[in-house]
């Protein structure tokens, strides 16, 4: 043993001796790891540390009645089971370090150094310090003395200091209501001490000091911070504590760490300011139905009242709504509300739209809260997490969908995993997001509800991200209504700011639609008017290009250097690069590293649009042209769009007016469901059949097959024995292929192989699913072939066979049970002249699903598009898709053909 090792071992041994009571109580031998290290067997020391840790966790397991028995559990399982009862991030990390070291030492081929053994003991001491500080006699063998409420508070305080890298040096329970704790941490050669005296009230403290003659406080420790923390703050503080001791009540102890008042004042002062005029917002409170997984409205009313109700009950909540519907304002009202302050004294607001995509959530929180927290930068996030996990905190997370690295489930999971630290059972988290991203995505919706089932894939992804699926908290959803009597908040504010021009704009649009000022139907007009008021006409095309392209590249914050490089120095008044000189500032808000202009120099300062909808409108404007869409898609980038961009694009219209010749030009198109919108390129023009293949056309094919066989048209991989006759036994109408009345109906009950052969028979092919969807949606990404508006009179779907909309699965099922859908059938392909795409392609929505050339080889299934007479309205959108086995033949599946053009 080297001299240095000897010294360190002696120090560790002394520290372990401080926990001798636990060793005696649990029958542990703290000498063994030290002895093993001294004998030169660090791997044995680690093994002993592992055994001791297991014993501690088993005791904790039994103490908290964790389901199941701890007997036979691995260290990993024990940590996992006990984790909910260990609030300190540091202790969790210590346990994982011990686990890692033990795994490594048990694995042949790894060299274990003395340093590893020392680290194991050091981490064990971190665990023991916390264990001791829990103040529970059942755990430590200590005779219970403290009142349980005081013990819990002492534990909270100890956990906080352990999180800040202190260790508990001394702990004395001086009475049932008073406890003394001394913490120390090393900073290089310097030691820092914190002394906490926690008591019920000053009279109890005075008694304790009288008994001890004040000796307790006669310490002369360097770098000492001394707190007297009282449960009840009234009364005269004893003289011995008056000079060098900060006296705080327990409820306000966190004030020593965080300047909450300043944080909330800054939140309220930034756009959208809470003193601005507001309009009432209505909302629906939804929870997931445990049977079907679908969301159900459980309460409706004023959104702010619903929000207060959830906040008071302590539940987690997701607020969803369209841009400008008032999500941010509601969230700000919540965190600054005095009513909420009673239940959750500490509220933090995070504007995730200001989070850099490459920045971790931890770094973002540290950057946001550092100006308000009195701890070193490295401890801002751990301290914040500790407060959050310990309860009494409300985290308001604004714009969740704007912070994900990519708008996919994987991107969501990454951020969710980062937030998992905060999403403990005792914190309240209120998040906002666009409707389209979170609520409309079935898989993510399930993720937001811990009672709902998650797919195995989702569970695997959660595990991969380090999130225990069983610990996923449950979220209720508050959905803000799109249109209220007053319109959207953003629209109303814009109408007010724009003056007579804005009022005129909103009144004109308002007359046309059901919404009031600022309703979704005219938000783009208001935003565009504001943009054109601020941006000079000559600069407008450049602004559209720069910020539109930036949006599809995922860039939403811009430094002054960016602005000068992209737009020219002219955007700064007199060439003065500063906040005051930025000519377009009316459209922006500060987004600098410190979150404020005052502290940011011009070099590091950045701006973001005052509301995401501005940049989304510029993106839509940019994507209106074929050149813009082509520029947005590069070999290295396959951008995703938001539903709001798509809506704006559809409202403002694409550049290709309907030609009516059924020709889909080569180019880039918006495709995908609302929560997964993509830009995809079509390389060659193609002409689609105007109508689905009819029974009449198919019978001509059958005639040709009967005469000549089908070998020359058959797919080379078609299994032997297949014939192209429809599956007549399956037809709902037995005479469907015999009665000429059905000749103009879509050919159904034929399989994919037959559809393929038919297309070849006509010298054509099946369209790919991408071609099919692009032909239906045109260049503006519309929801239905005719536009964004729902119209039951021009589509054959389940709702049109019923007398009311079939919104939910239950509604559809009940209607089926009543027999009302029994008459639903495919109809004539030319029955709905208005069911037409911008290129003139008819009957793409509803009637029958259509086979495409796109095949999922691993499943041996083909992609089908467009919905059918059997599906509710939501499933007959241009993006609606499913898969069907290639040999399948259904009454609800037909097809159409396509032809390449050179």
């Amino acid at each position, binding site marked *: 043993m080297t001299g240095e090792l000897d010294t360190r071992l002696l120090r560790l041994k002394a520290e372990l001796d401080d926990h001798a009571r636990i060793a005696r109580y649990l029958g542990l031998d703290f000498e063994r790891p030290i002895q093993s290290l001294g004998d030169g067997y660090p791997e044995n020391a680690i093994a002993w540390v592992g055994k001791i840790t297991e014993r501690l966790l088993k005791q904790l397991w039994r103490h908290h009645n964790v389901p199941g028995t701890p007997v036979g559990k691995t260290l990993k399982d024990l940590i996992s089971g006990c984790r909910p009862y260990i609030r300190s991030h540091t202790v969790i990390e210590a346990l994982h370090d011990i686990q890692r070291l033990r795994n490594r030492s048990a694995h042949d081929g790894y060299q274990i150094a003395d340093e590893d053994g020392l680290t194991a003991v050091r981490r064990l001491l971190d665990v023991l310090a916390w264990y001791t500080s829990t103040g529970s006699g059942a755990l430590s063998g200590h005779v219970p003395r403290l009142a349980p409420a005081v013990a819990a508070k002492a534990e909270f305080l100890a956990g906080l200091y352990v999180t800040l890298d202190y260790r508990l040096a001394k702990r004395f329970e001086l009475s049932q209501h008073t406890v003394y704790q001394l913490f120390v941490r090393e900073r290089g050669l310097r030691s820092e001490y914190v002394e906490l005296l926690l008591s019920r009230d000053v009279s109890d403290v005075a008694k304790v000091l009288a008994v001890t003659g004040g000796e307790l406080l006669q310490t002369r420790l360097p770098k000492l911070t001394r707190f007297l923390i009282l449960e009840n703050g009234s009364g005269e503080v004893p003289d011995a504590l008056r000079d060098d001791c900060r006296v705080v009540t327990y409820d306000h102890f966190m004030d020593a760490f965080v300047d909450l008042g300043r944080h909330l004042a800054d939140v309220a002062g930034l756009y959208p300011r809470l003193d601005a005029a507001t309009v009432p917002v209505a909302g629906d409170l939804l929870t997931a139905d445990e049977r079907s*997984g*679908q969301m159900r409205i459980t309460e409706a009313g004023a959104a702010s009242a619903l929000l207060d109700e959830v906040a008071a009950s302590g539940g987690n909540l997701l607020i969803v709504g369209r841009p400008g519907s008032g999500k941010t304002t509601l969230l700000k009202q919540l965190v600054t509300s005095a009513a909420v302050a009673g239940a959750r004294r500490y509220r933090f607001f995070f504007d995730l739209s200001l989070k850099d995509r490459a920045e971790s959530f931890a770094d973002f929180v540290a950057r946001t809260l550092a100006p308000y927290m009195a701890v070193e930068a490295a401890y801002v996030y751990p301290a914040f997490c500790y407060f959050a996990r310990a309860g009494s905190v409300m985290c308001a997370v604004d714009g969740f969908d704007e912070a994900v690295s990519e708008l996919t489930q994987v991107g969501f999971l990454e951020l969710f995993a980062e937030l998992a630290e905060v999403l403990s059972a005792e914190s309240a988290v209120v998040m906002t997001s666009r409707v389209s991203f979170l609520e409309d995505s079935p898989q993510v919706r399930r993720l937001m509800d811990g009672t709902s089932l998650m797919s195995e894939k989702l569970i695997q992804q959660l595990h991969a991200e380090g999130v225990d699926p069983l610990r996923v908290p449950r979220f209720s959803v508050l959905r803000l209504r799109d249109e209220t009597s007053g319109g959207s908040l953003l629209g109303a504010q814009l109408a007010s700011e724009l003056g007579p021009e804005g009022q005129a704009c909103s009144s004109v649009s308002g007359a046309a639609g059901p919404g009031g000022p600022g309703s979704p139907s005219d938000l783009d007009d208001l935003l565009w008017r504001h943009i054109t008021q601020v941006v000079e006409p000559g600069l407008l095309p450049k602004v559209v290009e720069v910020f539109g392209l930036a949006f599809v590249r995922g860039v939403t914050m811009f430094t002054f250097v960016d602005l000068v490089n992209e737009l020219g120095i002219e955007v700064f008044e007199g060439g003065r690069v500063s906040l005051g000189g930025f000519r377009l500032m009316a459209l922006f808000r500060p987004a600098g590293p410190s979150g404020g202009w005052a502290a940011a120099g011009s070099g590091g300062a950045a701006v973001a649009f005052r509301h995401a909808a501005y940049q989304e409108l510029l993106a839509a404007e940019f994507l209106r042209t074929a050149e813009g869409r082509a520029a947005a898609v590069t070999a290295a980038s396959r951008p995703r769009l938001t539903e709001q961009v798509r809506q704006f694009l559809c409202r403002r219209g694409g550049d290709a007016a309907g030609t009516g010749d059924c020709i889909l030009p080569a180019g880039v198109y918006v495709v995908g469901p609302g929560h997964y919108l993509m830009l995809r390129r079509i390389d060659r023009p193609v002409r689609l059949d105007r109508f689905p293949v009819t029974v009449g056309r198919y019978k001509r094919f059958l005639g040709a097959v009967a005469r000549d066989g089908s070998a020359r048209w058959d797919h080379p991989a078609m299994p032997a024995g297949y014939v192209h006759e429809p599956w007549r036994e399956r037809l709902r109408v037995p005479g469907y292929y015999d009665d000429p009345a059905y000749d103009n109906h879509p050919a159904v009950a034929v399989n994919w192989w037959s559809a393929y052969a038919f297309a070849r028979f006509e010298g054509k092919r099946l369209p790919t699913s991408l071609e099919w969807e692009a032909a239906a949606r045109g260049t503006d990404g519309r929801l239905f072939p005719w536009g964004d508006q729902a119209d039951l009179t021009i589509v054959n779907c389940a709702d049109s066979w019923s007398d009311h909309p079939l919104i939910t699965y239950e509604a559809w099922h009940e209607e089926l049970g009543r027999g009302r859908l029994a008459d639903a059938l495919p109809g004539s392909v030319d029955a709905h002249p208005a069911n037409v795409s911008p290129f003139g392609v008819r009957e793409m929505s509803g009637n029958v699903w259509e086979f495409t050339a796109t095949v999922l080889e691993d499943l041996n299934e083909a992609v089908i598009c467009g919905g059918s007479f*059997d599906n509710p309205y*939501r499933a007959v959108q241009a993006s609606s898709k499913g898969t069907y086995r290639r040999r399948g033949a259904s009454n609800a599946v037909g097809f159409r053909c396509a032809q390449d053009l050179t």
Partner: protein
Amino acid sequence: MSTPRDMPPRRAPAQAGGQRFGRVIDRQPAGSGPGRRMGTYFVRDDETGATCSFDYSDIVTEGFRTIRTGERVRFLPDPANSGHAIYVIRLDLPDIEKYYE
């Protein structure tokens, strides 16, 4: 309002008649036909090994109603009809990107 603390367990015990998990093991080839006869599927409960049947209308979806043999599903035992599954939800649908490949 449910709070995280009273979150029910993700997997309800078998006897509680709660959510079950299983795999579709068979599908009757019969179609709907003129008699409105619907095809029958069979799902085996992962935990109990019991087999339940269901028809296409029991599949919870707004889209095309079909299930492959071998697919994993969640379902509820029908309290009014022993051996029948209701609220059958498909668990592992393809990624959206797959529809555009």
